[in-house]
């Protein structure tokens, strides 16, 4: 058995068991406890060797499986008497596990059906509702009891608002100067442009996928533009912006700490 699948690909021990049952082509109505226990433990063991974080639920299931397996291995006569309260019939446990797996499986399948619906719905776009407040002429003082807005409506409104905002807000953020000084980043951009000897695309200057880095680079570009050290050109709307050395490039002081922010 291969272990290409990581444990976080599973929603929990039941999901993992369903995966093993499918993979081993086991009949879910007649689960061979010894085999499934071995495979389950094997999987957990490999995950542990890969130093992956195993949630406690997985270990709990492992314990249940081991208990079930060991009881089943014992000859019936050696088992404690049935009227002992602590005795659990392994067949009952197996039955319960099977029922749990079947229950879970049907909801997992329902979730898959919903996912398809979700994907279909996500492909459809609509315009924001038109603003009709100018036409609204309700009795403003009355608040109907039925159909009241709820806290969830409130939160939903706020959330939508913030999502919209995220697209529209101008860039304005505080940068920790200890992490990545803008002056240093300005030097970096100037050096890149000087050694390239031709205009570089705006995007190519943002190659490092770190948020702080992106923001500092952007601020550095703004500062360089202000100093006329660089020129930005865009041929058409939505085209990539090309950046070239500007008239003030020669006057640009390349000392490490020329700009203290």
């Amino acid at each position, binding site marked *: 058995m291969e272990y290409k699948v990581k444990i976080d690909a599973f*929603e*929990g*021990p*039941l*999901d993992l068991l369903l995966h093993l049952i499918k993979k081993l082509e086991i*009949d*879910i*109505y007649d689960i061979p406890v010894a085999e499934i226990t071995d495979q389950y433990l094997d999987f957990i063991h490999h995950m542990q060797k890969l130093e992956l974080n195993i*949630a406690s*639920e997985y270990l709990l*299931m492992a314990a249940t499986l081991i208990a079930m397996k060991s009881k089943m291995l014992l000859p019936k006569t050696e088992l404690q008497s049935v009227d002992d309260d602590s005795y659990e019939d392994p067949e009952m446990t197996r039955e319960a596990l099977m029922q*749990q797996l*079947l*229950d*879970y*499986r*049907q*909801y*997992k*399948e*329902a*979730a*898959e*059906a*919903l*996912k398809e*619906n*979700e*994907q*279909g*719905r*996500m*492909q*459809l*776009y*609509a*315009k*924001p*509702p*038109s603003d*009709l407040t100018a036409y609204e002429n309700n009795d403003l003082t009355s608040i109907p009891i039925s159909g009241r807005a*709820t806290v*969830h*409506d409130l*939160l*939903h409104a706020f*959330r*939508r608002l913030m*999502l*919209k905002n*995220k*697209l529209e807000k101008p860039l304005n953020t505080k940068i920790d100067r200890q992490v990545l000084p803008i002056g240093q980043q300005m030097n970096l951009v100037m050096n890149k442009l000087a050694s390239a000897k031709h205009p570089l695309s705006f995007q190519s200057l943002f190659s490092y996928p770190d948020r702080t880095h992106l923001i500092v680079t952007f601020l550095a570009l703004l500062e360089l533009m202000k100093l006329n050290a660089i020129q930005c050109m865009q041929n058409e709307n939505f085209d990539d912006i090309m950046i070239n050395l500007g008239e003030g490039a020669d006057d640009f002081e390349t000392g490490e700490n020329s700009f203290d922010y």
Partner: protein
Amino acid sequence: MILKREKIHSIIEGLLYITGEDGVQVEQIHKVLPECTRDEISDIVEQMKENYQTNESSGLMITDLPNGYRLTTKPFMKDYAKQFAAIPKTAPLSQAALETVAIIAYKQPVSRIDIEEIRGVKSERALQTLVVKGLIKEVGRAEGSGRAILYGVTPLFLDYFGLHDLSELPPLTEMMKQQNEHVDTYDLFYDQYKETIKDL
């Protein structure tokens, strides 16, 4: 005053445009067009739906909402429309959230403990996500000492998954039956296989 059918079409189309993403309820159309019964309105909208669908020159379509309709772009438009959308689509739900909301939809009202028993894992975070997204809400408290919160789905749940009402959810018992049938066929093969092995 009796309006021509074309005029009614055009008024409903106008309302669909104005309400955009929110969509319009049959009841609201009826309030604006009291000379049409709700059934007549539904008939006309179904006709309009058909027209949009078959009109290759149109990038629009009418989709169902709980008790209403909404004008959206056709699915093929998604690549063109995405960048112009004023309200960006949120990320799809995680597997955990999907499983949790599926359980709630079929079993509501249902407590966190019930959900965790079925899923076999903690589900608090998934529940929180679903509440924040407005897909589920608290619908009551369980009897007994714990008075656990009971959850149910909201109208937004229907909207989100493009369902008219809860009856459109695929029936679970059917699914169970299908599984049984499937397993039975499998068993049949297996038995034959065992027979074969025995004979060897």
